């Protein structure tokens, strides 16, 4: 693609994600790449895009700048008016979604969020693909002219998407104008205690379990498989038997594991949206008509209260050379 791409993010992860996807699109064609990010003070997340973009613009916006997308929107608007990019790509972050909405309105640009794939379409603008109706289908859009795209959590670069040896110039600027009326009162780091997205094996529990204590049945399996524990939406949101961090699905985490074991999970669309990236899906369910059956590679039809211990025993036997 020729022309220019503006990339935006508020933190390391979303900025890097946006830059990677942009680098993949810019690859053949030599589009110029510029990044915009916000810092409280100093260069903020600029370091993560070193080598990937031609210019990294960091707008210093004080403590408030990182708490909403307002400052990011202002910074992107300034950069967009200077650069006139064909395409603006923002990473997966709530502040990026806010910034995208504000920016698209200010620039009168088309805007699509939750983007899985973005392709230049020559004179037609851009072809963008994303999940629709909670993952029931994928929708493909054309955005004529300038596009503002926010990436889905699962979007990643196609092709290399790594540092391409560009000489990155970092510019730090103050963000002037526009009263920053949101005030930050306090902050508490919440380090993730669960890494579902990066787990090689995930054992996941659903409503087939009758009581909270019964989830312990899955514990043997989990430890034999050295797996992370996940769950479906009723378990995390309705019953609160497990914390939200363990939720797999559209509003939770998407897995990219080698194996996803769904125990007593019926396979609602929102849950399936989170397991698309699993290489092999196996399930245990009492109901052969459950949607999980056609959305899994292997389903054992049976009572999980009997099958789960049997599975653990089989895995144990295998481990002990049986």
């Amino acid at each position, binding site marked *: 693609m020729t022309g220019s791409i503006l990339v935006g993010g508020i*933190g390391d992860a979303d900025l890097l994600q946006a830059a990677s996807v942009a680098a993949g699109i810019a690859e053949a064609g030599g589009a110029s790449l510029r990044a915009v990010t916000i810092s409280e003070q100093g260069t903020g997340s600029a370091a993560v895009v070193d080598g990937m973009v031609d210019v990294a613009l960091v707008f210093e916006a004080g403590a408030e700048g990182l*708490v*909403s997308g307002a400052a990011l*929107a202002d910074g992107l608007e300034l950069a967009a008016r200077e650069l006139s990019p064909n395409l603006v790509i923002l990473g997966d*972050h*709530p502040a990026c979604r*806010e910034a995208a*909405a*504000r920016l698209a*309105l*200010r620039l009168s*640009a*088309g*805007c*699509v*969020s*939750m983007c899985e794939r973005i392709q230049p379409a020559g004179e037609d603008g851009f*072809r963008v*693909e994303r*999940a*629709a109706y*909670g993952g*029931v*289908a*994928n*929708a*493909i*859009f*054309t*955005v004529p002219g300038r596009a503002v795209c*926010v990436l889905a959590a699962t979007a990643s670069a196609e092709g290399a998407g790594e540092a391409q040896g560009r000489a990155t110039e970092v510019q730090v600027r103050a963000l002037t104008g526009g009263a920053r009326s*949101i*005030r*930050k009162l*306090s*902050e508490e*780091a919440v380090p993730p205690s669960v890494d579902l997205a990066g787990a090689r094996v995930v054992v996941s529990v659903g409503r087939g379990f009758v009581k909270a204590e019964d989830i312990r049945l899955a514990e043997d399996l989990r430890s034999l498989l*050295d797996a992370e524990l996940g769950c479906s939406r009723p378990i995390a*949101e309705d019953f609160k038997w497990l914390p939200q961090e363990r939720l797999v699905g559209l*509003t939770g985490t998407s897995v990219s594991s080698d*194996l996803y074991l769904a125990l007593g999970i019926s396979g609602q*669309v929102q849950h399936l*949206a989170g397991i698309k990236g699993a*290489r*092999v899906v196996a399930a245990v369910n009492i109901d*052969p008509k459950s949607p999980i059956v*056609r*959305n*899994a*590679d292997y*389903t054992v*039809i049976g009572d999980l209260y*009997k099958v789960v*211990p*049997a*599975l653990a*025993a*089989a*895995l144990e036997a*295998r481990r002990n050379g049986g």
Partner: protein
Amino acid sequence: MRIIVCAKHVADSTEIRFDEQTNQVLLEGAPTKISDYDRNALEAAVQLREQNEGVSVEVLMVGGSEAQKALKEAIAMGADKGYLIEGGWDRFYDPFLAARVLTRAIEDIGPVDLVLVGLYSEDGYNGLAGAALAELLDTPFLAPVTSLALAEDTLEAELSLPGVRVTASSPFPCVAGIDSTANVPRLPTVLQVMKVKSSRIQTLSLQDLGLTQTVQQKANGVRLDEYASGAVKRKAVVIEGDPESAAGRLVGELVQEGVLQ
């Protein structure tokens, strides 16, 4: 303190199907309801009303006569009044159109101190309408909100951002996007919903709001070309039999797949 909750009337996402033969999304016959995330916004509004003096809660919904029931349900949750903007379009990917319509309605109803929205809509799942609304109303936007409280002249909110929990405040008027984990929405009984008098609903026509032209145009400048299957092709092998032999067979298959270490 005047709070308006924008609640979307949607087709029940668990009933929507995709036809792989025709590449069509089948919405016909899917029952309709209040979008789940907007229930959290309604609950947040009603809780603020219960915890503070002099707070009114009104609900704004877009839809035809079929949305009346959903709007009554929203009112039965504890709102004082509801507005039904006669709708008539279904472009889930155009949250900007929704934002333009809601803005015009709020200006008509106004002035308003606080607008609450669900963080996402259950059908579109764009996560953009709330921020677009804030931009058009020229107010700050706080999201994703997990709890909120009314202070002297400000809204104080706890925001659940990736890796960090922040409390922030915003002057009024402002828009807040409520997270699904913020609360457990109360469920009004069928009787409570039935008891909501139609007189508590005011209908706003697109014509009265001067929006008929706006709705014709694409506010988002985005064209939906087609749908494609989102499903991943799986083997769909079914293993039956007694637990022990079924378990053994599954382990065998997983060994073949090379996913067991």
